[in-house]
């Protein structure tokens, strides 16, 4: 049994190994299955959700995203750069009396400093989101299941020596999944249709 508190993250971004996937319409049944997969000690669990479901992260051993800290750091860095740019221009490079104010008037540098830092923070935030979610324009994208972005939840478990396809299919059925699908790469291209079953609970 894996300790859910101290368990390492058990998900990977894409199914890179052959897998068996179970599909659910009900988010609660999906959460129960994810919890059972964690308790059974499965690793490399992949979970697909059409919309965020509260509380799924601790079940899958996912930690809080790291994105906040680099964005904060970049914003602070560009606050400093923007302030320095203004100081350099107003005091060193092109000192000019403007409105009778001193060359270095920090109050008048606030807006450009703030806006520059926040803008660059926002851009880095976007890039980090694209990077962590592996988002690139993909006109030929084929979803694993046509309703994964609509109303279907999916749990994919890798086929390993200790968990063969047949036992995983049976395991998913016991958990009441609406459909079970075996990855074609598991050497069972035709098994896709054979193993697909729809249970109407």
């Amino acid at each position, binding site marked *: 049994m894996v300790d859910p508190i101290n368990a390492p993250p058990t*998900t990977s*971004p*894409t199914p890179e190994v052959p897998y068996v996937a179970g599909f659910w319409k009900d*988010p*609660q049944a999906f*959460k*129960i299955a994810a*919890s059972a997969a964690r308790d059974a000690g499965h690793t490399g669990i*992949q*979970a*697909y*959700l*059409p*919309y*965020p*479901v*509260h*509380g*799924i*992260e601790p079940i*899958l051993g996912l930690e*809080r*995203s790291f*994105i906040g800290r680099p*964005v904060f750091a970049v914003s602070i860095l560009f606050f400093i750069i923007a302030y320095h*740019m203004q100081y350099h221009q*107003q005091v060193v490079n*092109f000192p000019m009396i*403007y409105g009778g*104010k001193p060359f270095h008037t920090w109050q008048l*540098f606030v*807006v*450009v400093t*703030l*806006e*520059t830092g*926040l*803008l660059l923070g*926002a*851009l880095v*935030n*976007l890039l*980090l*989101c694209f990077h*962590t*979610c*592996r*988002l*690139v*324009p*993909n*006109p*030929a*994208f084929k*979803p694993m299941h046509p309703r*994964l*972005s*609509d*109303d279907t939840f999916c749990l994919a478990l890798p086929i390993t020596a200790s968990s063969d396809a047949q036992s995983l299919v049976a395991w998913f059925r016991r*958990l009441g999944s609406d459909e079970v699908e075996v990855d074609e790469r598991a050497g069972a291209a035709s098994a896709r249709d054979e193993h697909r079953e729809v249970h109407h609970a």
Partner: protein
Amino acid sequence: MSSDTHAPSVAPVELTAAKITDDILAPVFKFPPFAWWGAFLTAAGLTGALFLAFALHCVEGIGIFGINSTIGWGNYIVTYVFWIGIAVSGTLVSSILFLFRQRWRNAINRSTEAMTVFAVSVAGLFPALHTGRPWVDYWLMPYPNDLDLWPQFKSPIIWDVFAITGYATTSVIFFYLGLIPDLATVRDRAKHPLQKMIYGALAMGWKGTASDWRHYERSYAQFAWLATPLVLGMHSTIATLLAVGQVPGWHSTVFPPYFVSGAIFGGLAMALALLIPMRAAFQLKQYITIDHLERIAKIMLACGLIVTYVYITEFFTAWYSESVYERGQFLWYRLSGPHAWAWILMQTCNTLIPQLLWFRSVRRSIGGLMFVALAINLGMWLERFVISCLSLEADHLPANWSYYTFSGWDWFILLGSFGMFFTMFLGFIRVAPVISIAEIKSVLLQPKRIHASRPDGTNTGVSEVNRG
């Protein structure tokens, strides 16, 4: 006047994830009705008029408009501040209400974010053209050049350049980031190969893994944190643009909070004016309920009271200052000058009519809300007209006093700005979900907090079950 006072806020139809998707994506996959085409082509025609006026401005110069040597800030600045104000309220809904965990915002945040992006796009054109030589606007940016010239960072004009650039960029990427999961839903629902390809490219290969959602939600929240100071800073900067000037009428109150509250006030009125017909036309009353509209009305009422307080403060400060020109501006020129009609109409629209929102029957009446929203929109445009033009008309030098009138091209600019905004908005509601599908599902289909167990009776450690 149709009233929904006693109507249930949500229709008694069981919601499922698939039904939500069907309802929200219906406008995307259906051929638009004639009414939409009529509105779209009218708006597109007005946009054409706008760009015709811009083109003539570039050829003939800024003299084609009604401004003169006294009133140098006319329609361009008035309409610019009006549209920026509209944009501000979108960020209020998408960011500030998000940070306050107001989940009711999920029904309206997509449309208000779109409103923000389109309003900023329209607004950004005006200062860029008002420079007189828009083809050299890049001089406003601090870029390396042979003459070692810099923009003047102590000037509020430059602050405005940075504020608008930062806000517009952040609004666009915030809006797009929010769209990505929903674009993936459209991609997976699309039948036509071209639609699949376009939405596939726009959805950026979104897969929706638990890990993706974890980073995505964190990034979204981060944007909310970044956008909030950006928007408050931006509109405060525009207010400062006026307040650092010496013109009477621009010092009698604290301009930044005045502008921010006024912007939210007017922007939410525009949001109502867009949401009310949209929810009816697309059968979205189950998602954008009368409760949502009432909450918007309550925020409008609160902001309207702040604006009213500011109007009173301005008069008191002008009187108390004993400055002849401040007193003259407020106690004589605005009340009885040649543009007194604008001030009186502004007060009627922004101070008197919003008081109707104290009545629950008005807040829950579609006709009543629409009337108040349209009145506030008119009033907020007039407010900017009064602040900008009336103040400039009667400045410190009586020999300089003048009178501002619209030229024909000013009407092209004003009406064309509405045309451009509505062209973009009408186009948007046909190509993208007008309600955030993923967010509304996560709210409406959120599990209740009760104990759950596996089929074999053992505890799952999961303490929630789905409501549906």
